[in-house]
């Protein structure tokens, strides 16, 4: 008879230190990096300059415009998002509903600079819509300035708000929805009993999220701002750093931005609003609502078609204008082709390490939360949320000030870009991995403990099967985010060595629209390629192991029951 045969020493890496140590190091480094960046800012921003904020008219204008455009964008995005969500909730059988939902998801991964080039193709000076409208009416409209900025922000954030709101609407408990359906409640009463209570819970959170996104948007304002009258804090920071070499002012602006974003973040955390704001992919059962008939149905359908067009037209513009552009580049060859190829390689040299870094850090830091006590869990959640609290450009500014003397070679700059890109992706990647990693139910965990399936073995047999698909998606996400990044690279890169988004920006800036459309299409293709490469093997395998997934699904259901 064997006794005590399975010592904990048998499984490699099963010492508790392995679950905590690496995560602790990563979390500590993340915090240290952030603190170093912030400290550099404070050290650079001389206090006497604070008065500049209200004495200098330019700076005052910048702050006022930043808040104004963000408020306007947030309000419009929320209204449009709510209209979309209500229409979708009322019309569960709308043809193309799931396709529309997918398109609304796209705004999460579409690089801003690509979307901007699409928007320019539709609403720009020679855009489709502009030509049609100007031909038939006397309406004149200029995309550059507040118009364009708000339009682009709504393009990105209305679908985001719509998805989260739809989820809130559909999360109303089924019994309550059935009662409403049976009573035939419509209009005001349906809104009061069913929709408003659901929406009210998430509205402040979404408002804060969208406001932060619009407040800190960089690429959109850079490309569509069109002049000092419509400059935001982010762009002003960039200009101070790169063109005016006024580091003190850049630091001061970064601190202002940090203060405002930090205040919003604190407000979210205080009210417990930060949870569950990421759109989920599953939607609950559909119970027919009494108010989805007749004239409302027509109105909803019209609205949804308009939204679909609003989202689709810029993409179509990229495709239709980009294809000839790309063909020209490919056929003519020469410098354009060489530029594009070089930029592509450079982009991947940044994006792949950035994706890997974000996924790896997310895993290790999440492991902290699972194994340690409450203190480690808090450290883990703070470390992964730091990039949300401290906008990348603020962190970038700090690190730029800290390292600018020692950054000799341009490849060091690129490494820094990869690092900050990875940090930016961290909150999203964490969100993707958190569920699957923490999803071991008690029965499974106890079994594994008893059998001694610990350390590396536990990872191999329990976590890996559940995590490989989320991991692939997270890797695609992190890589994609970095691939489309324009803000950080603008700060640290050199114009002579562009990544694909920077190349696109340069082409947009010099009004080489055909070339720009081609580059935008190319960037979009690269993104699709990244997502396909990371996720296709999973799909093929999924077909073979359908049983396995059925089993996983039943397990999930069993846990609810």
């Amino acid at each position, binding site marked *: 008879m064997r006794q005590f045969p399975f010592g904990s020493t048998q*499984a490699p890496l099963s010492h508790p230190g392995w679950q905590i140590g690496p995560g602790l190091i990563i979390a500590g480094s993340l915090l240290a990096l952030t603190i170093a960046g912030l400290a550099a800012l404070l050290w650079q921003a001389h206090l006497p300059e604070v008065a500049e904020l209200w004495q200098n008219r330019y700076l005052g204008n910048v702050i006022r415009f930043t808040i104004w455009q963000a408020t306007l964008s947030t309000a419009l995005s929320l209204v449009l998002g709510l209209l979309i969500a209500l229409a979708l909730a009322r019309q569960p059988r709308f043809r193309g509903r799931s396709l529309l939902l997918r398109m609304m998801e796209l705004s999460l991964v579409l690089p801003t600079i690509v979307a901007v080039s699409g928007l320019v193709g539709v609403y720009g000076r020679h855009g489709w819509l502009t030509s049609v409208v100007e031909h038939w009416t006397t309406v004149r409209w200029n995309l550059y300035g507040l118009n364009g900025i708000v339009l682009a922000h709504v393009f990105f954030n209305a679908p985001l708000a719509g998805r989260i709101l739809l989820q809130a609407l559909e999360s109303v408990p089924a019994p309550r929805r059935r009662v409403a359906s049976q009573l035939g409640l419509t209009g005001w009463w349906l809104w009061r009993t069913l929709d408003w209570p659901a929406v009210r819970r998430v509205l402040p959170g979404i408002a804060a999220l969208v406001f932060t996104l619009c407040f800190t948007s960089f690429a959109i304002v850079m490309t569509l701002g069109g002049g000092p009258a419509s400059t935001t804090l982010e762009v002003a920071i960039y200009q101070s750093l790169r063109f005016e070499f006024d580091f003190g002012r850049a630091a001061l602006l970064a601190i202002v931005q940090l203060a405002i974003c930090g205040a919003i973040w604190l407000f979210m955390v205080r009210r417990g609003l930060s949870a569950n704001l990421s759109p989920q992919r599953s939607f609950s059962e559909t119970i027919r609502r009494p108010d989805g008939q007749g004239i409302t149905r027509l109105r909803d359908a019209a609205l949804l078609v308009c939204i679909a067009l609003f989202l689709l037209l810029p993409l179509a513009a990229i495709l239709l204008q980009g294809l000839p552009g790309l063909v020209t580049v490919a056929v003519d060859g020469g410098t354009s082709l060489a530029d594009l190829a070089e930029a592509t390689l450079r982009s991947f040299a940044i994006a792949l390490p950035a994706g890997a870094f974000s996924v790896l850090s997310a895993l290790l830091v999440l492991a902290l939360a699972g194994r340690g006590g409450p203190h480690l869990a808090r450290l883990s959640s703070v470390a992964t949320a730091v990039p949300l609290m401290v906008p990348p450009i603020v962190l970038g500014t700090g690190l730029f000030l800290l390292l600018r003397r020692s950054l000799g070679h341009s490849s060091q700059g690129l490494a820094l870009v990869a690092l900050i890109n990875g940090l930016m992706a961290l909150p999203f990647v964490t969100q993707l991995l958190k569920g699957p990693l923490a999803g071991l139910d008690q029965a499974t965990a106890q079994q*594994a403990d008893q059998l001694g399936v610990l350390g590396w073995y536990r990872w191999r047999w329990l976590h890996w099967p559940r995590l490989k698909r989320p991991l692939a998606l997270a890797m695609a996400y992190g890589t994609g985010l970095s691939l489309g990044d324009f803000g950080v690279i603008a700060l640290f890169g050199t114009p002579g060595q562009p990544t694909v988004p920077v190349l696109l920006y340069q082409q947009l800036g010099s009004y080489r629209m055909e070339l720009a459309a081609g580059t935008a299409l190319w960037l979009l293709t690269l993104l699709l390629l990244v997502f396909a490469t990371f996720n296709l093997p999973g799909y093929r395998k999924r077909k073979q192991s359908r049983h396995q997934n059925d089993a996983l699904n039943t397990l999930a259901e069993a846990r609810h029951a």
Partner: protein
Amino acid sequence: MLDVKNLTFRYPDTETTWRFTFQVDHGQCIAINGPSGSGKSTLLNLLAGFLTPESGTIHWQSRLLNDLPPWDRPVTSLFQEHNLFEHLDVQTNIGLGMHPGLKLSAEQKQAISRGLASVGMAGFESRMPGDLSGGQRQRVALLRALLRDQPILLLDEPLTGLDAEACTQLRSLLLRHKAAGKVLVLASHDAEDRKILADKQLNL
């Protein structure tokens, strides 16, 4: 001999304190009796190390088990359900009980196949638990427990909800295991189970 002395446990924020004292010899089965909520499952979880007692001792062969983590205790648990890793096939489920990293020798693999055949499940190696009936799942779980070959088997309603044929087969497996000198600790509502398997009773 498994020797449990004055083992006490209280769930946080509750008044009731449970106290357990009993001894079981090699080749014996003790049945834990009592209505639901009388602490049967609690006792089994204490023995397995899933719960930490307030006071008292658990000795096995005069060695103190209290401070050992679940993976170092000479026990295997068998619950009414949720005994298998749902995302792993039958062979992997059993194999992880024999080596926690599934590093199996050819003989061990053969032992799994033989074991499956002996419970009427020949050729089920690559089936997923989700595709099996309740009785088949429980047979796989018991097979793992037996092949794991630990001296103490903790049974928490192991046969509840199974059809008569499965019950008969599983009982005979358990009896054979007992005859091989193992200790069985059985919590079961079923009088038949207790009559056939148990040598002594503990009333809670």
